[in-house]
C-alpha cells in the first residue's frame, strides 16, 4: 500500500504573500477568541437563550465536517468500491478532512461554555447514550485520531527521504554556543530517519483497518449530526423536521464530500499551476448525480409522506430557503449528467460549487434558518463571531498550504494527466530502505550513541 511515488511535495516557497494575508486573518480571529475567553461568549457573539447555537456550530461543526467529508467519500470509492485509480486523490482529501475535523473540534472548544469539564466525555459513569451529541462528540474525536493515523505515512515518507536541510539551516542560524554538536545531531536525526523507515511498512500493514474505521465513524456521526435536531420538534420548521434527518444528513455528506474533492483538486491545480486531473475528476463527477438523486428523492418522498408539499411551494421565507437548497443541488447534479460538461474543468467547478452550496445550505436551514424558538427571538451573527469562523477557515487553508509543501500529498504530476500511473514498475528507489535493513541500522545507531 506504499503508494509513495504516487504523491509528491509541492515545490516552491512557503512564505508567500497569500501566506501572510491568511496569517493576518487567523490572528484577528484568534484575538476575538481571546476576548471570548476573558469576557464571555456574549461579548463576541449574538447568540441568545433562544438561539443557543450560532454559526460556530452551524458552520464550523455541522457544515464544516460535511465539507471535510472528502476523505470519507473518496475512501469509500477507493477501498470499498475498489476503484484504485482514484487513489491519487486520497491524500489531499484526507489532509483537508484532517484540518476540517481538527478545527471543528477547536471551534467546539471555543463554543463550549465550560470546556474544562469536557473530560467528562471519557468518564463512563457520565456517558449518556440517549444523546446524539454524545455520539457525535466521541465519533468526531475518534475520527480525528484516525485521520491523523491515516496521514502518518506521508509524514514518515517525508522523514525517510529528508536531508534535514531546514534542520541544518536552523542549527547554522543558532549561536554556536547553544547550537547542538553537528555530529550528535546528525546521528540522532539518522536514528529518526531509520525509525521512520522501520515503522512505515508495519503501519502500512494495519493501515487498512484504520481506513475502514475512517469510513465507519463518519457514517455514524454524520447521521447523528442530523439526529441532533430530531428533539427540536417544536422549534424546527416542519419542512426540515423529519424522522429521516439522520439519513438525509448521511447522504448529504457523501455528495458534499465528492463535490468538495472535485473542487479542491481543481482549485489547488489552478492555484499551484499544475495540470488538471481531468480523468479522475470526470469519473468522480459521474458518481455525484446518482447520490444527489437519491437524496432529492428522499426529500420529496418525505415531504409527500408528511403532507408538507404545499408548505414547500408556499413562497414564504422558509419555502424560499428550501427551494434554494433544493434547486442548487438539483441544478448542479443536472449539469453533471452530461458527459461533455464532466470533462471540462470549468463546468466541473460550476456544478460542484452548486452542489456544495446547496448541500451546505441544507445544513444551515436545519440548524439556523428553519429554527424558530418562538416569538421575540432573532439571530444574525456578529462581526466578531464571523471573524472567529473566518479565522478558523483561514487557518485551515494555511495549514493545507504548508502541509502540501512539507509532505508528499498532491498527486504526482509526472506521467499524470493523459494516461495515469505510468510509473516505471521496477525502478530502484534510492532512498527507501528495506525495513529489515532499516531495523539493523537502527539498532547499530542506538548502540553507537550509547
Amino acid at each position: 500500500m506504499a503508494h509513495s511515488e504516487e504523491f509528491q511535495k509541492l515545490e516552491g516557497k512557503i512564505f508567500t504573500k497569500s501566506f501572510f494575508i491568511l496569517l493576518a486573518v487567523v490572528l484577528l480571529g484568534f484575538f476575538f477568541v481571546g476576548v471570548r475567553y476573558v469576557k464571555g461568549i456574549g461579548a463576541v457573539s449574538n447568540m441568545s437563550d433562544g438561539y443557543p447555537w450560532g454559526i460556530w456550530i452551524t458552520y464550523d461543526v455541522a457544515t464544516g465536517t460535511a465539507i471535510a467529508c472528502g476523505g470519507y467519500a473518496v475512501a469509500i470509492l477507493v477501498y470499498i468500491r475498489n476503484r484504485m485509480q482514484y487513489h491519487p486523490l486520497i491524500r489531499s482529501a484526507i489532509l483537508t478532512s484532517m484540518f476540517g475535523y481538527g478545527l471543528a473540534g477547536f471551534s467546539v472548544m471555543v463554543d463550549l461554555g465550560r470546556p474544562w469539564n469536557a473530560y467528562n466525555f471519557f468518564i463512563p459513569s457520565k456517558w449518556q447514550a440517549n444523546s446524539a451529541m454524545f455520539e457525535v462528540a466521541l465519533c468526531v474525536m475518534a475520527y480525528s485520531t484516525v485521520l491523523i493515523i491515516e496521514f502518518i505515512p506521508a509524514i514518515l515518507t517525508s522523514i525517510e527521504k529528508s536531508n534535514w536541510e531546514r534542520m541544518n539551516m536552523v542549527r547554522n542560524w543558532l549561536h554556536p554556543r547553544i547550537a547542538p554538536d553537528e555530529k550528535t545531531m546528525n546521528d540522532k536525526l539518522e536514528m529518526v530517519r531509520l525509525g521512520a523507515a522501520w515503522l512505515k511498512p508495519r503501519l502500512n500493514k494495519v493501515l487498512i483497518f484504520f481506513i475502514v474505521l475512517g469510513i465507519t465513524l463518519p457514517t455514524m456521526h454524520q447521521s447523528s449530526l442530523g439526529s441532533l435536531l430530531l428533539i427540536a420538534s417544536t422549534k424546527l420548521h416542519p419542512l426540515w423536521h423529519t424522522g429521516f434527518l439522520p439519513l438525509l444528513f448521511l447522504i448529504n455528506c457523501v455528495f458534499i464530500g465528492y463535490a468538495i474533492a472535485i473542487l479542491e483538486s481543481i482549485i489547488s491545480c489552478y492555484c499551484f499551476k499544475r495540470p488538471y486531473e481531468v480523468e479522475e475528476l470526470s469519473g468522480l463527477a459521474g458518481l455525484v448525480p446518482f447520490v444527489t438523486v437519491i437524496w432529492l428523492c428522499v426529500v420529496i418522498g418525505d415531504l409527500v409522506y408528511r403532507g408538507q408539499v404545499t408548505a414547500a411551494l408556499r413562497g414564504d421565507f422558509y419555502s424560499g430557503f428550501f427551494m434554494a437548497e433544493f434547486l442548487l443541488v438539483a441544478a448542479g447534479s443536472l449539469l453533471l449528467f452530461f458527459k461533455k460538461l464532466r470533462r471540462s474543468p470549468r463546468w466541473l467547478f460550476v456544478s460542484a460549487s452548486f452542489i456544495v452550496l446547496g448541500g451546505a445550505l441544507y445544513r444551515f436551514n436545519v440548524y439556523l434558518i428553519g429554527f424558530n424558538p418562538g416569538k421575540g427571538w432573532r439571530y444574525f451573527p456578529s462581526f466578531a463571531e464571523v471573524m472567529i469562523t473566518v479565522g478558523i477557515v483561514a487557518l485551515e487553508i494555511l495549514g493545507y498550504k504548508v502541509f502540501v509543501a512539507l509532505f508528499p500529498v498532491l498527486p504526482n504530476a509526472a506521467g499524470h494527466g493523459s494516461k495515469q500511473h505510468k510509473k516505471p514498475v521496477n525502478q530502484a528507489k534510492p532512498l527507501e530502505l528495506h525495513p529489515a535493513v532499516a531495523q539493523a541500522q537502527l539498532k547499530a545507531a542506538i548502540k553507537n550513541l550509547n
Partner: protein
Amino acid sequence: MKRQSRRDFLKLAGATGAGLMACGAGSALASDGPHINNEEMGMLYDATMCVGCKACMSACKRVNSDYGSLSYEKARFDSDGLWDAPSDLSGSTRTLIKLFKESDKRWSYVKYSCMHCQKPSCVSVCPVSAMTKEPVSGIVDYNKNTCIGCRYCQVACPYNIPKFQWEKALPQIVKCDLCKNTNLREKGISACAETCPTGAIRFGKRGELLSDAHARLKENPDKYMAHIYGEHEGGGTNHLYLASMPFNKLGLPDIKPEAPAEFSEKIQHTIYKGFIAPVALYSALCFIAVKNMKGHKGPDDGAAHEKEEN
C-alpha cells in the same frame, strides 16, 4: 473482481438504507404509551389567583442566589439599582411573573419556571449527564460540575427554560430545581410556593395537584379555560397551570402529548441498538476492503495498478 465488489457494495448500501428506513418508519408506529408517575413533586400555578406581587421571584432569588448563581438585574430606568427587574428568565433569574394584557378587562399573570417534565428533553440530550431527573422526587436537576456548556438543553427544551450566562467568562446553565438543595431540604417546600400570599402556587405531589386542579375546574367552569396545562403537554409535566386565558397567549407553547424525547430516542435507539449496527458495518466494510486490497498486494504496488487498469 470489480463486479463482485460492486454487488457487495450495493448489498451493504441496501442493508444500511433499509435499516435507516426502518427507524424512520419506526417513528410512525405506536409508542408503548405514556408512563406518568403521579408521585413526583410538582407545583400547581393558578393564574386567576395570582396578584402579581412577585414575592415568589424575590424569595427565589433570596434563597437560591448563592447555590444557583443568581444575581439582581437592574432596569434601565433604575440607575441606583433599587429594584431587581428581570425582563425574562435569564442567567440570573430562575422564575418570573409576567402580565399579559389583552384589554382592560382581559388580562392574566403568568409564572415562568422549569416545567419538570415527566420525560425531560434536556435530560435526554445532555451528553455528559449534567441534567438529571431524580427517580423519586422527579426533580429535573442541573449539575454545573459536569456541565460542558454545550447548550443542547436549550435547543431541546420546548419551553425555552434553561438559560445560559452569556456575559460571564465562567458561565453555567440556570434553571429551577424546586429549591432541592435549599428551601426544599430545609423546609420541605419550594420558596415560591412557601412565600405566595394568595396561594396561587401550590406545592405537592403531582397526583394531588392534578385532582385539585380538576376539582377547581369543576367548581368554576366559567372562570377557567377547560384545560390543565401540563397534564398531557410533551408527555406531561410536574409543573401544572390553570388560567382564564388561552395558554399560548400567555407564552406557553402548544405542544403535542408525545414527548419530543420519545421521538428522538426511538430513532437513536433503533440505529444504535446494542451497538450491533456499527460493529456489523465495520466488519462488513473490513471484509470488503481487505478483499479488495488483496487484489493489489503484489511485489510492487505499481504492478497492481497496471492489472487494475486492464
